[in-house]
């Protein structure tokens, strides 16, 4: 971060000195997009950002990075961040972390979402920190980023958010869950709202990559302990999404639970 800022000051001095430095010629002339990116017209600047992001050119990436370093209005920063993350490079992280603290929640959300593409500890730390943001949409963005970036440090705060009934946290946990984590989530019964827990565990069951089947059976049994109607809904979704054949013990278990609940007049 400090390094990035030092670069900013140095580049400003360079510009201020009046050097008539022209962008180096690349395979494609992007000077129009670079100029438009710094335009006072936000719509034109936002389009330029998107256009530069579509180009897999180092110069385009540099231009985006420079523009973010020099500061962009929110409506331009959001597409510029997305464009930057389209072709991730390690130097981006410092810039994205800077925007992950931006006063505008939309900008923060965009930066956190973008950070999912970066495997560095700094990026993961920023995502985990984003789960503590006071703005719900930012927390949701951080949760999504934690899932996509497979940020293990995010598990504890995600569980805390799940305990407050935050659905994006449940989705993220479902996406992150291996068997151990799934068991841990199941153990949250009583600490987490029933509906949120059922949805989270149900989402794990729906994952094609989650298994083997004995693990799914455990999840079905964990859901069966939830008395809320959402448990039946989660199991029903699983039954509906799973073919009868070849037979799966987890599906049979789920069918049994649902039938027993419905036959007993339960929910």
């Amino acid at each position, binding site marked *: 971060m400090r390094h990035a800022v030092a670069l900013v000051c140095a580049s400003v001095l360079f510009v201020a000195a009046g050097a008539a430095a022209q962008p180096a010629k690349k395979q494609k002339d992007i000077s129009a997009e670079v100029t438009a990116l710094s335009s006072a017209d936000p719509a034109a600047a936002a389009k330029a950002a998107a256009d530069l992001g579509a180009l897999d050119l180092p110069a385009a990436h540099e231009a985006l990075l420079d523009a973010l370093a020099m500061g962009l209005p929110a409506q331009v920063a959001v597409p510029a961040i997305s464009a930057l993350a389209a072709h991730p490079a390690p130097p981006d992280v410092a810039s994205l972390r800077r925007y992950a603290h931006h006063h505008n929640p939309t900008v923060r959300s965009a930066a956190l979402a973008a950070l999912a593409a970066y495997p560095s500890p700094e990026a993961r730390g920023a995502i985990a920190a984003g789960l503590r*943001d006071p703005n719900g949409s930012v927390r949701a963005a951080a949760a999504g980023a934690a899932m996509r970036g497979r940020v293990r440090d995010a598990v504890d705060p995600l569980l805390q958010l799940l305990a407050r009934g935050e659905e994006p946290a449940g989705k993220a946990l479902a996406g992150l869950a291996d068997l151990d984590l799934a068991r841990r989530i199941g153990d949250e019964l009583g600490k987490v709202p029933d509906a949120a827990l059922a949805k989270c565990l149900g989402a794990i069951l729906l994952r094609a990559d989650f298994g083997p089947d004995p693990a799914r059976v455990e999840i079905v049994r964990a859901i069966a302990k939830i008395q809320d109607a959402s448990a039946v809904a989660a199991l029903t979704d699983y039954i509906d999404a799973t073919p009868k054949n070849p037979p799966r013990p987890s599906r049979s278990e789920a069918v049994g639970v649902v039938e027993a609940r419905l036959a007993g007049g339960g929910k």
Partner: protein
Amino acid sequence: MKRALVLLLLVGAGCGGKAVFRLSSDENNAFALDKALAQRQLPATPTPVNDAHQPRLYALANAAGANKTILALDLASGNVMWKADAEVKSRIAVGGDFIVALEGNSLVARDQARGQPRWRHSVPGTYVGHAADRERAYVVWKSGSTWWLAALDGAGGKQLWKADAAGVLGAPQAHGGVVYVPFLSQWLTLVDGRSGRLLTRVRGIDEQISTLRVTSTTAYYGSKQGMFELDGRSSTGLRAEATYGKVAIPAQLERTTYARDAYDDVQAAYTANDRTRVLWATTPVKQGPMAFAGGTYAIHHFRFLLGFGADGEVRWAYSHPRVELVASDHTGAVVVGLSASGEVVAVDPVTGAVRAQKSLGTSQQVLGGTFDADGWAPAAEGQAADPVAALVGILRDRDARFDRVKELAAGVLAKMPGPDVTRHLLETLADNRAPQRLKDAVVEQLVARRDPSGLPALTAQLAVRTDYLAKTEPDALGATARAIAGLEGLALDTGHVEAALAALEVHLDAPTTPTADLAQVIGAMAAIGGGAERQPLASHLLLYHADDLGGEAAWQRAISIALARKGGPGERAVLRRVAGDPRSRPGLASAIRDALGVE
């Protein structure tokens, strides 16, 4: 017409009593005053009035119905001498072997050793006040348009003499055979207690005379403005030429008075007015103003005793637990207080150390009391008061009536060095129940404090951040930043500065920092950063120059000034670039130009 009225008054005043209180009479007569003062039979050193010369307290507590309970306490032994229920309606005056108070409509003297009634004298009019010396009781009352002063024999209650007045008399005081009676707010009349003869009178030329305080050795008179010590120089009637003194009473303790108002009927009894008093002793002087003993004085303010130096600065503080002190006095050696629950505390007037603690051992609510304890100097030397602890105790008091005192305590506390003091002040800011006015005062004190040792405490205060999961939010961020900014120019520990900058930078970057606080954070970083703040501040400016936040005038000013004042060539180049950027928010370029203009 006016002359005829005066004549009428003079004629009327002559009926039935001695010719003591006249509108025209000899006054401010140095010879007569010296003679009157010499006539007094006073002890060489401060001594209790009672014949046993033992320090005592006569307290009044609530009892069933209209009754009260008088409790007599021997302060030296701590033993309760006696208790007696009585319909007491006034203060208690102490004589040699008796005490006297208004009970119902009569002045009743009680045996000082046992509390049994000794005599009863019906007051033939509206009671104004009474006093006693070793041998006699004196009472002032009003009947029709005439005021009366009478002397009663302490042993048997026989009326010895009486004198009338066609103008208002205040409640009297007495010692050594001389009665002091305020007359028409202008004169202090000195009357021979034995004969009722006018000895002399003093006229206040540049100050009213509405207040009296009499100890075993000294009489003081004056008003809310200040007090004269009665001595030979009183004949001048002028503050500048008499032995006159006034103390600095902090604005927060504005109701404090030197003694009861002799003309206020309500104060003829123990009232809340007794809970706001200046307490002092003096050493005699031949010239110049009144000399406070030890150069100190104290103020009793409800639950609190505050000790002041001659410079008017608070030296110590005592906070009585739970209940108010309902009576107080200065014995010459200690400041004594009596609490509503019957505890007596004696505090060293110089150090604030508690020298003695006694108890009336009652569960009744104590309303007030009269100390007959002149010269009492309890031998036990307690530890000197911890002024910080006492002031913090005041600061955290939950009683909303004392908010102004808390402001005073904060001010005094802020002048004391040390990180603990900073921490205590910050805790007040974090206290949800503390009134905003007190918090505002504390902020100003923190800013003015400029104590480098407090920087770690201020940094620690910054550690609390907005965290949705932890349910925390920063406490007093703007105030803390202002206090840090106040340290500009002082020698600060490098490590402390680094830690403070790191903590400030977190809030600089935090999306939840309100703009007003952000401006303070920026100012604090610039104040103590020594250059290390330049890069984060430049980055911050660039990040928001084209954003909504960049449109905030407070932010524009703060960031522009910080970088222009403390920045190097790089930061000034950033400023110039931002000023020229068409995307910069309105007003920012102007703020930058203003700031760069003072480079």
